[in-house]
């Protein structure tokens, strides 16, 4: 009897140890599932075959990077960086203006204006491609930076406004009023009082916009047909032949496209997460 009394809790201990081991093993599996593909890309980009499991591939090489550079990849990098940076600056500036008006002023049709911003976030972009193509063809905006910047500003403007309105809610309205009492003009209030306080929000929003544009494929595919105008996601697809795939080059291009996104993501992760929980950020 005494034996049983001693044994029972011990059995439960064993059960809970096995349970814990199971939970931890599951977590390790999940981590592998999440991380493996990214590790794979970076490892593969330094292997001749681009595929870490294929036979005889375990010799490190920069050949893949040389291949993509010889195939205009530096131009794609420049195009991506230029288009995205200009578009992010324009988009964020416009979004701050709209978000400020939404957050601080009452005006007619405001509910409708806000609803249209929300709908803009959910709009199926693919239906815009053909009409925009016709419009761009007439205006000479195909294969142009201006056309792409216009697209990317408009693609990420609704998200940016939505996110910034959220961040502005955290800046007390009393501050604006106090500044107004002190004789600040409206523009001064925005630039000198509100902007500094919402700077972290602006940085998070701008980063998010940048990532959205950096990884955009559909509009680039439709409107950039000249090789010298292509962005990185498009340039990457070039290494996908119809019948054969140069996996080494594809992996090197993939690594080059992913690395900046990763470097931007890591420091901002916590802010982006809080943006997501308010349902404002697109996956």
């Amino acid at each position, binding site marked *: 009897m005494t034996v049983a009394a001693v044994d029972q809790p011990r059995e439960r201990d064993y059960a809970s140890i096995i349970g*814990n081991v199971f*939970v*931890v093993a599951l*977590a*390790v599996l*999940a*981590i592998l599932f*999440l*991380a493996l*593909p*990214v590790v*794979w*890309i970076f490892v*593969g980009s330094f292997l001749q075959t681009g595929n870490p499991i*294929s036979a005889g591939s375990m010799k490190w090489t920069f050949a893949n990077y040389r291949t993509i550079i010889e195939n205009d990849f530096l131009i794609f990098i420049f195009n991506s960086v230029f288009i995205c940076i200009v578009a992010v600056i324009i988009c964020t500036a*416009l979004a701050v*203006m709209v978000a*400020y008006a939404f*957050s601080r*002023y*009452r*005006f*007619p049709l405001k509910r409708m204006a*806000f*609803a249209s911003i929300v*709908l*803009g976030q*959910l709009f*199926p972009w693919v*239906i*815009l*491609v*053909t*009409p925009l*193509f*016709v*419009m761009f063809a007439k205006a000479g905006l195909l294969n142009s930076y201006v056309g792409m910047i*216009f697209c990317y500003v408009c693609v990420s*403007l609704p998200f940016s406004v939505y996110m910034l*309105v*959220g961040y502005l*809610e955290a800046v007390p309205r009393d501050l604006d009023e106090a500044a107004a009492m002190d004789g600040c003009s409206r523009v001064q209030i925005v630039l000198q009082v509100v902007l500094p306080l919402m700077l972290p929000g602006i940085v998070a929003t701008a980063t998010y916009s940048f990532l959205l544009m950096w990884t955009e*494929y559909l509009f680039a595919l*439709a409107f950039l047909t000249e090789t010298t105008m292509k962005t990185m*996601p498009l340039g*990457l*697809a070039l290494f*996908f032949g119809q019948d054969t795939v140069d996996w080494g080059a*594809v*992996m090197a291009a*993939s690594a080059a*496209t*992913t690395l900046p996104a*990763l470097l931007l993501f890591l420091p901002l*992760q916590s802010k982006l*997460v809080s943006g*997501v*929980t308010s*349902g404002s950020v697109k*996956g």
Partner: protein
Amino acid sequence: MISFERQHLGFILAMLVPAFLLLALFYIWPATFNLWNSFTDLTLLSMRQGGNFVGIQNYVDLIRDSGFKTVIWNTAFWLAFVSTLIRLLLGLGLALLIHSEPVRRAGLRTIARMAILLPWATPPIVAVVVWRQFFDGQGLFNQIFLDLGIISEPVAFLGNQATVWPALLMIITWNTLPVVTLTFLAALQTLPKDLFEAAEMDGAGTWRKFVDVTLPHLAPTMVVMGLLLVIWTFNNFVYVWLATGAGPGTFTNVLATEVFMKGFISFELGYSSAVGMIMVAIMLVFGAFYFHFVASRNFKEIM
């Protein structure tokens, strides 16, 4: 909130007009053009003189076309329903796992949080690329399955009707699971502790606590996340297009790829526009839900 007075009008307009002008040019004008085209027989050849007005003929053709039924089924069942369900379940499971005591004690919580960021930061095209290599004839999966003797010859997972949808959903799930998981994790961090203690006092076990306390707490997050996932995947063009090109044949064709292929490849612009308008109509319903139940509640103060 500053109440509306005439003297503010200039400032408000200056803040709003530039952005809304661009948005109108980008969304409203093309969408209107699209709506008009959907009632014409516009093709590439008739581009210069414009298409003839054909009324609702394109919509009638759509409904009669059996291929379109497959497109609707693929979009509604595989993309909207199955992929969302999988991601909600896996996302919840993963969040609970990371949040759990053993994982914390094993020192894995931070590592897991970092690992989650990797797929999230991966551009969709890159995600598709690396998974395409996994699914390739000489890829990881074939290698593993061949070694284990599960299959006797390589399978083209993305070119085979039996495996293409699961493979596609795997790509989408890997790339978008982080958002779901992190959202649930954030919700788990706000779990009311006193409710847990009360449940423990009542002698509730782990399962009962989960069902009676955790799940109800997470329910609103699940609904919002589910709605967003449906909308995002419904609209998404990139995954299907890059992974399978709507193939094999048109086996994985969805609304977004159908609009693109009909409009941009076979240049049946009238028909493509009609498909596009169906997408817009469906999206307006989801959008109204989202606006009413999520956006306007989040921003009650400014409305």
